[in-house]
């Protein structure tokens, strides 16, 4: 039997776009015809439901599953737009200790039988909630912003993920502003990669339309004309093994030559 993949999206630092990335990568995977369920592991501070526009449909949540008040199926909310996209929301009234890493593993073992992808939105930090989120993961995607503090936290997270033997982490650099990069006022993707030395899987431009779409509860990945949406769709394609080139449109000007060189050399390092 073909088992699905459990992918955890995490960052260390808060506010870099984990939840937005989770919603958009999940939506993009579902739009490619994959069966996808996303889990909001941020118990007590849930918001993946809001970003997906499913807040008003919640009846049961993750903690209800763990504590046996409902069946796994009952807590899964089907997306309005995509047939094959489901959400398991977090509880808002409890805290991280209501779920253990073992519970998460058990739930995901069930889900991978029916789904191609289980995408987990991790809370910020490196405490219990983060441990819950990475415990069942087959793969880890690290989201970072081109700023020193976010990159520093990403580095710490990659170290922990390596120590837990969760396989090499993949990196999404979110909120790249090509104008600032070309003026030298922002870290370029190449600078981030140089420090983190992990595989790059996505570059997402800084775009106010993201704010609008998250407030509306409609993932930008489903907007065919949006460049930012394209960036998320490219990530989904790379996840299913397609070779999608990084275009300079979302990379930020003249760094692309240097960037592809770096991607190659970080690939060699792992070999």
């Amino acid at each position: 039997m073909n088992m699905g993949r459990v992918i955890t999206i995490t960052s260390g630092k808060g506010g870099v776009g984990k939840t937005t990335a989770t919603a958009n990568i999940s939506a993009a995977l579902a739009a490619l015809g994959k069966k996808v369920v996303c889990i909001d592991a941020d118990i007590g501070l849930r918001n993946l439901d809001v970003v997906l526009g499913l807040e008003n449909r919640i009846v049961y949540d993750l903690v209800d599953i763990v504590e046996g008040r409902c069946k796994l199926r009952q807590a899964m909310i089907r997306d309005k737009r995509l047939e094959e996209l489901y959400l398991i929301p977090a509880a808002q009234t409890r805290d991280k200790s209501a779920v253990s890493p073992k519970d998460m593993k058990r739930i995901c073992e069930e889900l991978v039988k029916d789904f191609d992808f289980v995408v987990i939105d991790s809370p910020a930090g490196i405490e219990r909630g983060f441990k819950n989120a990475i415990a069942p993961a087959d793969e880890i995607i690290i989201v970072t912003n081109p700023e020193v503090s976010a990159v520093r936290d990403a580095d710490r997270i990659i170290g922990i993920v390596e120590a837990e033997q969760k396989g090499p982490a993949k990196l999404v650099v979110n909120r790249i502003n090509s104008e600032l990069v070309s003026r030298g006022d922002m870290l370029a993707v190449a600078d981030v990669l140089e420090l983190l030395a992990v595989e790059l899987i996505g570059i997402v431009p800084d775009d106010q339309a993201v704010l609008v779409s998250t407030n509306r509860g409609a993932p930008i990945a489903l907007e065919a004309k949006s460049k930012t949406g394209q960036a998320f769709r490219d990530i989904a394609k790379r996840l299913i093994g397609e070779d999608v080139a990084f275009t300079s449109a979302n990379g930020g000007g003249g760094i692309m030559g240097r960037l592809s060189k770096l991607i190659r050399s970080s690939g060699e390092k792992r070999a």
Partner: protein
Amino acid sequence: MSPEVQIKGIREGLLVSVENGDWVEAEQSLLSELGRQKDFLKGAKLILDVDEHTINAASMGRLRDQMSEQGLSLWGVLSHSPLTERSAQAMGLATRIHHAEQEPEEEIEEEPSVVSVDANALLLRKTLRSGFNLTHAGHVAVIGDVNPGAQIIAGGNVVVWGRLRGLVHAGAEGDESAVVCAMDLAPTQLRIAGHIAIPPQERGEPRPEIAFVKNGEVVAEEWNIGAQAGTV
């Protein structure tokens, strides 16, 4: 009979020793013993002596998590198994208790550099990331980068075959002759024995450098292959 677990007080904290044998059984009796004594052990610096047991990073992580769930903090792991030591170091746990501190009678006054002569050198072949914390009595060699937020404290010299951007303390027990060298020497802070240096922010092209103490100050010099061969 399940393997025996012993707990005794030492200078650094509490030493918990586990008998050799099957690790699964040993871990079980260890956890149940820690559970029984947890009120007594809470807040103490726990050092685990696992002797010959081979423990990989994943199971050591699990053990630490299970201990922290009981409110116990694992500070260090002592082992004769190199794999176990590496797993512990990868998690930032101490793997040595300083001998001099353990047996204060045997002080070696005349030879301050003895630490770097008889202690083992440690070779790490990986990128040391933020949050990584290594304390080692001997020399430390790293093949890979030392990122900002990572920390190496060595009794002897520190050699980094890569970019050094974290914090490094060489000669941490007072050895002023200790050196730090790196392919790109750009640490957040560099300490040798009792001296602290903060390298300049603006730097040119990276080049191999060696830092040492000269006239009471930490200085860094470009590594010149021909000229310096044989001096260190």
